[in-house]
Every structure is written in structure tokens, then in C-alpha cells.
């Protein structure tokens, strides 16, 4: 997968996640100290690329949160500290 495709697909998921985060009262991880990496419910290729992204960010010493799409409308995202 090209970097361009990865960026566009991640922005797509980012939009959904951002709408979720800004509409719910989620105060955890909102200080700006965390880096979010999104994981798709369906796109395995994107998830493989994003796994590498998580590894790279952790090497930089960042606190990484994996935001996993669940497909469940009641709780659409699952947050796991990597």
C-alpha cells in the first residue's frame, strides 16, 4: 500500500473517530500527550501498515493509543494503549 493510500484511508477513519471523540465525554487521552493510530474493522492491509506505524512511534518514545473500529454502533471504538 502506498503512503498516499494509507494517509487517505487513515483520514477517513480519523474523521469518524474525531466525531466520536468530540461528541462523547471522553477525557482520557485528550491532553495531547497521546498519539492515536486507527485500526479498521475490515481493511487488513491498512492495519498491517498501521502496526508498523505504532512500532515507529513507540521507538520515538511516544504514548500510543490504538483506536480499533468495532462495528458496534453502541461503542464504535475500542481504545488500547500500545
Amino acid at each position, binding site marked *: 500500500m502506498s*503512503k*498516499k493510500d*494509507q*494517509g*487517505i484511508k*487513515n*483520514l*477517513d477513519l*480519523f*474523521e469518524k*473517530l*474525531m*466525531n466520536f*471523540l*468530540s*461528541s462523547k*465525554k471522553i*477525557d482520557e*487521552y*485528550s*491532553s*495531547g500527550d*497521546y*498519539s*492515536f*493510530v*486507527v485500526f479498521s474493522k475490515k481493511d487488513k492491509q491498512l492495519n498491517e501498515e498501521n502496526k*508498523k*506505524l505504532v512500532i*515507529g*512511534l513507540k521507538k520515538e518514545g511516544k504514548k500510543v493509543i490504538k483506536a480499533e473500529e468495532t462495528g458496534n454502533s453502541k461503542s464504535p471504538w475500542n481504545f488500547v494503549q500500545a
Partner: protein
Amino acid sequence: MKKIKRIKRNKYKPKKDNPLVKKQHEFNITPTDRVINTYMIDSKKLREITSISYECLINGEWVTIVYYDNDKSHSDRLHVHFKISYQNQEYEAPQSKNVRQKGTARRLNTWAVEDLKNNYIIYKRKFFKRSNLDELDH
């Protein structure tokens, strides 16, 4: 003397001002590209887009290439700001042409992300061109 009967009226309850809280989220979209979303929210809903910035990793440092905002200085209207170049860290005059300006903060937020999705590669390319940088290195 006849007593005047007091009528009980509902007292006016002043509207409670929900305090605004600043939130910031950093989203990495590729190893060299990220988006930072900063906004003000009260207990009920999103109130103000402080900034949605697109940043690129250049020579080991994160550089903001473009950001959107609709704070009070812009009368709540959405504007876009482009950085002049890597060498000149100032921003061009804020632009509102072809930018959705009106709407709820949530709608403007969505518009800004949509715009980034469609154009971030173009914005990046133009920035690298203005900065005389080779895009392949980043």
C-alpha cells in the same frame, strides 16, 4: 384594607454557562504525516475549532503545513492558513475563499477533515515546491 394576594411566579433561572474545556488529539496517518485536532468543548457539544493542523515530518521535525480555525478572531468563521515555506515559518494571510465558513462547529470540523482528505497531498506538494525541498526524501 383588603389584602392583595401575592401571585407566585416562576423565578427566572439564569442560563448556566457550561465551562469550555480544551481538548487536543494527535492522529498519525503515515510515518511522516499527522493531523492535530484542538477544540473547545462544553459538557454538551463541540463549540470551537481552535485548530485542525496538518503536519509533516521534515528533517526530523514536525512542521505545520496548513491549519484551519474558526476562533473568535475570525468571528467563528472557518479559515485556512498556509505556511509560507520551510525557510519562512510565517503563515500567508488567512483564506476563506472556497472554504465552508458557516455551520455548527461540528460541521466545520468535518468539512476541514474532508478538505484535508481530498487535498493534503496537493498542499504538501505545493509546500515542498515553495520550500525547494525534494518530496521523495520525506
